[in-house]
């Protein structure tokens, strides 16, 4: 079972099994509350569940970085399918084939940068869940393609520049990069735009496209 290949997952399962065994035994036999019972219950209700929760939370946060996680909301299914498609030439798919991104290519390109980047990304993720629950849960994919867009497209260049530094001599050798350097740095010209490297996703609506009353 691949899911148990991670040490954290093993710790979580071990803690959960031990705790469940103690609690089921308590429910079945209902022993009197003597010192030994209290000690066993401390393990079953305190120590082992805390161990399971800690390892489970870390495991859960890691799971939120995976492409399967992002694709599990139906409105992202096309984006996930495109990334999975090894023959696709989209930026998303090309990055998914890169060993440095792999199964975490959504997170790598969309996560916020900076000291609080992870926290901001998770907060943004909660917003996505809220929007999905309140607005997009029953939205057909065809409609979602027309309405879902980036909240702040200008910030996307920052994420490209994490790997593709604008100070790299190789990058600066490209005449178009050099000519538009400042516009690229402030996000006025998008790296992932039709005039440059193409749209990140084939179904993506560019920042110039009218929003049609939709929320990102």
């Amino acid at each position, binding site marked *: 079972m691949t*899911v148990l290949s991670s040490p954290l997952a093993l710790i979580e399962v071990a803690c959960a099994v031990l705790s469940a065994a103690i609690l089921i035994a308590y429910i079945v036999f209902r022993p009197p509350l003597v010192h030994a019972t209290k000690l066993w219950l401390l393990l079953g209700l305190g120590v082992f569940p805390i161990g399971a929760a800690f390892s489970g939370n870390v495991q859960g946060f890691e799971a*939120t970085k995976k492409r399967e996680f992002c694709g599990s909301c139906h409105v992202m299914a096309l984006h996930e399918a495109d990334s999975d498609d090894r023959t696709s030439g989209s930026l998303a798919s090309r990055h998914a084939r890169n060993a440095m991104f792999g199964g975490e290519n959504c997170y790598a390109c969309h996560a916020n940068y900076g000291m609080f980047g992870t926290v901001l990304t998770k907060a943004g993720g909660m917003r996505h869940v809220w929007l999905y629950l309140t607005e997009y849960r029953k939205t057909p994919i065809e409609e979602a393609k027309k309405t879902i867009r980036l909240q702040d497209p200008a910030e996307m260049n920052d994420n490209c520049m994490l790997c593709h530094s604008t100070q790299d001599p190789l990058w600066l050798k490209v005449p178009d990069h050099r000519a538009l350097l400042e516009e690229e740095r402030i996000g006025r010209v998008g790296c992932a735009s039709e005039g440059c490297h193409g749209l990140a996703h084939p179904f993506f609506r560019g920042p110039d496209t009218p929003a049609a009353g939709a929320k990102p």
Partner: protein
Amino acid sequence: MSPVRVRRWLVLASACALGALALMAWQLFDPTVWPVMVAMSLGQVLGTASLAVFVYVFVADFRGRQRGEGDSNKTTE
């Protein structure tokens, strides 16, 4: 707290903890949006509530025993 009430609270806490553990295990085997979200919200709430009930019962039992010991000392005097 009577032994019957203690047992009832602890069975409730055990059931809550088992529910929390089931949710945490679910997110491990199906790491998609809803299992992960539910495990990290409802799972945490249930787990914390079960521990809180255990601590409450433990403290109530401890205080009850202390009170009982105090009463028996007064009777002896």
